[in-house]
């Protein structure tokens, strides 16, 4: 299964992924609408945080959603069906990667742009790659995501 794999030592903190993500999905630019978000940890490194689509988790968001609006829609991405979301926020709490967010009354998360992720197209030094999962990289990302929660 292919997923967006973050590489913590490479991320430059340019935030092109963040900006392009919200522009693609919402037609505007706002980190608060970003499915991928970059966190700066002092001068040491920057951490891109994004959903791994179950490659490295047990799809906790899917499990906890009381109305089952988080589903594997097209076979490669876990998606929030916006119209059905009741805005309870359970998934946000449950995600071990801090990769699902609420704004207003809806949850939203990365859906891999229907298989062709926009963020990847803007990451010049390949700090995020779209490939078969790399468990070690996900482990590090999880620790980092925990630290920025």
């Amino acid at each position, binding site marked *: 299964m292919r997923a967006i794999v973050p590489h913590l*030592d*490479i*991320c*430059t*903190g*340019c*935030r*092109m992924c963040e*900006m*392009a993500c919200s*522009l*693609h999905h*919402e*037609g*505007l*630019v*706002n*980190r*608060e*609408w970003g499915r991928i978000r970059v966190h*700066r940890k*002092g*001068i*040491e*490194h920057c951490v891109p945080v994004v959903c791994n689509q179950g490659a490295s988790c047990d799809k906790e968001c899917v499990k906890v959603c009381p109305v089952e609006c988080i589903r594997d829609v097209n076979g490669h991405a876990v998606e929030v069906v916006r119209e059905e979301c009741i805005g309870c926020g359970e998934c946000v709490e449950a995600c071990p990667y801090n990769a699902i967010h609420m704004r207003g009354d809806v949850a939203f998360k990365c859906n891999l742009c229907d298989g062709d992720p*926009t963020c990847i*197209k*803007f990451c*010049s*030094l390949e700090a995020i790659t779209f490939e078969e999962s790399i468990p070690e990289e996900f482990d590090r990302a999880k620790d980092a995501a925990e630290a920025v929660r």
Partner: protein
Amino acid sequence: MKGFAGRILKIDLTSRAVEKSPLPESLVRTYLGGTGFAARFLYDNVPSNADALGPSNVLILAPGLLNGFPVPTGGKVLFCAKSPLTGTIAESVMGARLGSELKRAGYDLLLVSGMSGSPCYVYIDDDDVEIRDAGDLWGKDTRATAEDIRRTEGDAVVACIGIAGENLVRYANIDCEDRQSGRGGLGAVMGSKKLKAIAVKGTGDLVPHDADKLMELCLRYYGRMVESPAFNDDTKYGTGEFLEWMNSEKGTFPTRNWREGVFDDREKIDPYYWAPLYMKRNNACLACPKPCGRIFGIDEGRYAGLRIDGIEYELLYSLGGLCGMGDIEELARANELCDLHGLDGISAGAAVAFAMDLFQDGILTREDAGGLNLEFGNPEAELKLIEMIARREGLGDVLAEGVKRASERIGKGSEDYAVHVKGMEPPAYDVRGIKGMALAFMTSSRGACHLRSCAYALELTGKFWKFEGVDRFSTEGKGVEIKELEDMMTVYDVLGVCKFSRGFFLAEGFVDVLRTVTGLEFSESEILELGERVNNLKHMFNLREGLTRDDFRLPKRLLTLPIPEGASKGHVVTEEEMNKMLDDYFEARGWSKDGLPAEEKTRDLDLA
């Protein structure tokens, strides 16, 4: 208005009043953003002959128009005020998130006036704006200050000063996430207002005029940048990439306080040597896919644990060659001191080099220097002196005034050793061998500067944009050249685009980007006219402060001491060449021989 936040935020630290007002639509088309808004509001809000370190000076934070959008390298934001170093307009651009965050908080511009009675910091969280106590932060270095604020404010983007700004060092800078608004003493302006930091959190949407088209444009320019031949070298070696070329091939790397133009220890400070050993990762400005910034780290020895963003070309010159110092770890430590204390590394290095030069000729003694052996190339002396400058101790107190004022204090002929234009210590281009660049140093509105025009690239390669066959040793045609380049580069600072992208955008690219983000239609010539307008306005500000033709002069050393060795050997700018180029420039600008804009010029530019 698409692309704009639509409001201006004004804070007065004396009365503690906070005012939010709509962005005047009349200014949008004529100034657009960034340095355009900054120049207009500086001119309109700072009374003439205001004390740069007094309450009536206004500190302006101006995001570039494109800040926040994924236009590649469009993340540049600037601070502006009247300069305590030069008495002219000061503005300094940095690649930090501060601008986009301010826009997302809902403001296209922030003006801070007045003076707080005690240390404070400004906290902006969308509509919520507070002036908070900074008693506990005063005295802390830039990194600790930002960390402390972020500990309580989470994701806020923090710009702050170090002790140099608190101590009113005339070239103190403002730091934001290890990037600096470096030149002209803007940190001292903050210090004078007892303003330790500005913290911004913004959660609003930035809505472009045409989102689909914008995505397409961003991808196109991104692709061009990433595929360009320079991508690899820029990201691997950073701005110092062309050091050997500047030093050996061109002979224009100012060395030992401009006694020489070639540094014999070049290979020890060349990024081709040190990047593979010390570089940890790339560190980008907001929105930059081809980052020249990098994190330099030392893991062993006495500086183990050191981390800086650098070492940038300019500081390889000022803290390295100019001081005759060729030890890369000591240089990194000097760079770190400047960053932590909040000192402009160019001016600080130049001040140290100036002192070393006086020491060599016996004008300053060991006693004057508090016992320091100020020989060129002595790293201990350099580091100690930087510390003394930031703390304003002993000789450091004199050097904290900048080389111009310091030489006036020291006397004894030291004026001849002070290399500056309008009081600003110059960047790393030995203009005796780059004549057009000499003119650019002279004409820059903030004092000796390479970035108002970026003429070095054209001069040294012979071609750029609409210019071809340019000869760096000739003075022909330089007036028009510098005028046109200044107007073009000003557009970069209006939009907030990096000038290292000058090969990618130019006026035609900006027409597209502007339309897509704002819906405003501009022709190429209208964009350039906007640049011209802004430059004239900055000049009018300087004139109002009493600037005269004499203030455009080069310092004596560059007029009398030819470069002794290397590829530019024997070259100097003569008095005659200086005057000829300045006459040409004034004419190209439509100004009189004394530098006064003709009435029709100001009228044509809507400045009358």
